[in-house]
């Protein structure tokens, strides 16, 4: 078996958000970083919320942890009271070196997963997540690329083949891997449309561009519209930050 990829599972633990059906089984091969967080308004001190809610939150996290353990995953957990949930999630990704973040949606009995491939950048991490999580399952894996302007058929074929080869190296049966391409002006909409035929989606984190400030991160938009779980594979953490942290240690 390959290394367990570490996957962050953030849950707003006190707002009735619970672990959706099928998620523990979906991540059975992962090292799950279970993050229960509670977002509080500026008027409230985080310690104040802790004083009142810690016990309740921990009871729920206990349940979730057991569910993951029962499914076969290894679990590390954190409970965070925060004014800035996004900062908390980003920090956990870096601190625990998470390869991917799960947008938790229900996935009763997954049969096939769509792997959206954007380009060669980040391909290695994508392979480690997909290979690590699904090498010994019988899920159908479809590698998918939306062909953009100026890309030739050979480029796309090479891209998908190289990912397929890596997955096979990681122990995924070649017969389980399919490929599919589409051409579209607006790749994102195309991905969401295609995703409807699948039970789960794995995709790379998108670069923040100007458009993301207007419309939100593309990955968020996919997650909003797709009803199943979405695994967002994180970019390699920037070198400088890693060094800075090392210097601070």
């Amino acid at each position, binding site marked *: 078996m390959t290394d367990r990829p570490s996957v962050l599972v953030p849950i707003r633990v006190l707002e009735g958000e619970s672990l959706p059906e099928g998620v523990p089984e979906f991540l059975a091969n992962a090292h799950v970083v279970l993050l229960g967080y509670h977002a*509080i*308004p*500026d*008027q*409230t*001190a*985080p*310690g*104040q*919320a*802790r*004083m*009142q*809610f*810690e016990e309740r939150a*921990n009871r729920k996290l206990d349940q979730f942890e057991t569910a993951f353990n029962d499914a076969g995953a290894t679990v590390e*957990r*954190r*409970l*965070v*009271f*925060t*004014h*800035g949930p996004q*900062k*908390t999630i980003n*920090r956990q990704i870096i601190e625990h070196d998470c390869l991917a973040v799960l947008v938790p949606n229900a996935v009763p009995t997954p049969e096939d997963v769509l792997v959206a491939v954007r380009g060669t950048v980040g391909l290695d991490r994508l392979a480690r997540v997909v290979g690590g999580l699904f090498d010994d399952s019988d899920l159908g894996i479809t590698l998918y690329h939306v062909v953009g302007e100026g890309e030739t058929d050979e480029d796309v074929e090479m891209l998908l083949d190289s990912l397929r080869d890596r997955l096979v190296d990681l122990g995924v049966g070649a017969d389980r891997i399919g490929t599919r391409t589409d051409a579209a002006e607006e790749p994102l909409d195309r991905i969401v449309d295609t995703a409807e035929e699948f039970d789960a989606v794995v995709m790379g984190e998108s670069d923040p561009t100007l458009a993301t400030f207007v419309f939100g991160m593309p990955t968020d938009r996919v997650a909003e519209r797709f009803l199943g779980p979405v695994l967002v594979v994180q970019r390699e953490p920037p070198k400088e930050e890693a060094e800075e942290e090392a210097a*601070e*240690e």
Partner: protein
Amino acid sequence: MDEPAVDVETTGENVAGERPEDEPEAVTDDVTAHDDEVELERTIGLVGGLAIGIGTMIGAGIFVFPGLAATEAGPAASLSFTIGGVIALLVALPTSELATAMPRSGGGYYFISRSLGTAYGAIVGIGLWLGLVFASAFYLVGLGHYVVAVLAEIGMGLSIPVAPHVVLGLTFGVILTALSIGGTENTASLQNIIVVVLLAILTGFLTYGSLDAVGVFGRQTAPEAFFSQGFFPVLTTAALVFTSYLGFAQVATVAGEIKQPSRNLPRAMIGSVIVVTVFYVVTIFVATSAFGADALGRFGETAMVEVARELLGLPGAVLILFAGLLATFSSANASILSASRSVYALSRDALLPRRAGQVNLRYGTPHVALLMAGGPILVLVATDRVEVLAEVASFLHLVMYGLICVALIVLRRRDPEWYDPRYRMPGVPALPAVGAVASFALIAFMNPTSIVVGIVIMLVSYLWYRYYAGTVELKGDI
């Protein structure tokens, strides 16, 4: 890079059988960590810290005090503000050092209870809560004056039997408390924007005013003796206007939420004191140059509006009215929130009932603590005693400031193993000793009424501690 937490085993229980909450295990740049993998995220950066400090302070010194101060001290009022600024800086230095050694919520109360013991802690903690209540009431009366001035400007004089600014102050007090309890919008970023807008308006206005005052635009200013009222009033005025310097300690109140505390806390506290001191001194210079101290005094709380009208005509007056509304509003708001944080810190340590720190299930806000701030504020606004409100607020803070200096000297002398501040102030023990003496001395120059009210509050706090705290012991291993 975990720093060791303060070596404190809080022990004992109060008369209601409540025990102080456990101390955290470690403090890092990003979180306060408790055991069982529970973390409290730090989310306020340097800009946010500066905005809390400057936003709380700038309301009073520029938009309420110039008229009052000029009446009492003449043009030398700018010296009064300088004295206040120097004392504030003398206290901001030790506060910064203690804050980097113990970056926990509660600020001055936390440092003093952990280094000097529960009794001092209770007096300072309750004093901090009520001091902020007095300060907030003072800002709300100021806000009332500005709303009245705005209404007068658009031709809507209010003719009601009671003083209109008090009614307006009360109304805003109710609105602010209700917003704090029921609003979940991001108030912190709003506060940042308000402070930036204020500083931009003031920089422009004061630059023009200064150039005008030194005669660049060819206008004559009334020459006036600097110490027109003598030297003694300079000191009493310094005691009065010290309320304008209470904000930097509010940064320490949220020390538990500041990112990279060892870097950001000292910068935010010392930086905000320096920024507002410069603004205050220049403001008084411009104001007294435009009118002369006597004329200025007759305009009362909204004197700056008349200064702006004199210099820039109607647009200037409107601009300063707008800025005054923003400034007094943000100061009142920041003080209510800090008062609620102080109540939380006290209830965390079992010096007030645990219920006082309770969080509302619907909004996630500390409604009891906010009401314990908002309720007394309304009573105080109704008294309409601007100067007493300001001085009592200063009194209660100055007691804390003096004790902060004492705590620093004690900690440096005993030098316990856990005491490892990232920022170490220069000139110990001389500078903190001067800070302590100056803080306590300034109290002596206040009105007798303010001194009596302040002493009564301290006495009641002590009695409350004797009655309620039981066996609670908060002092660290020193």
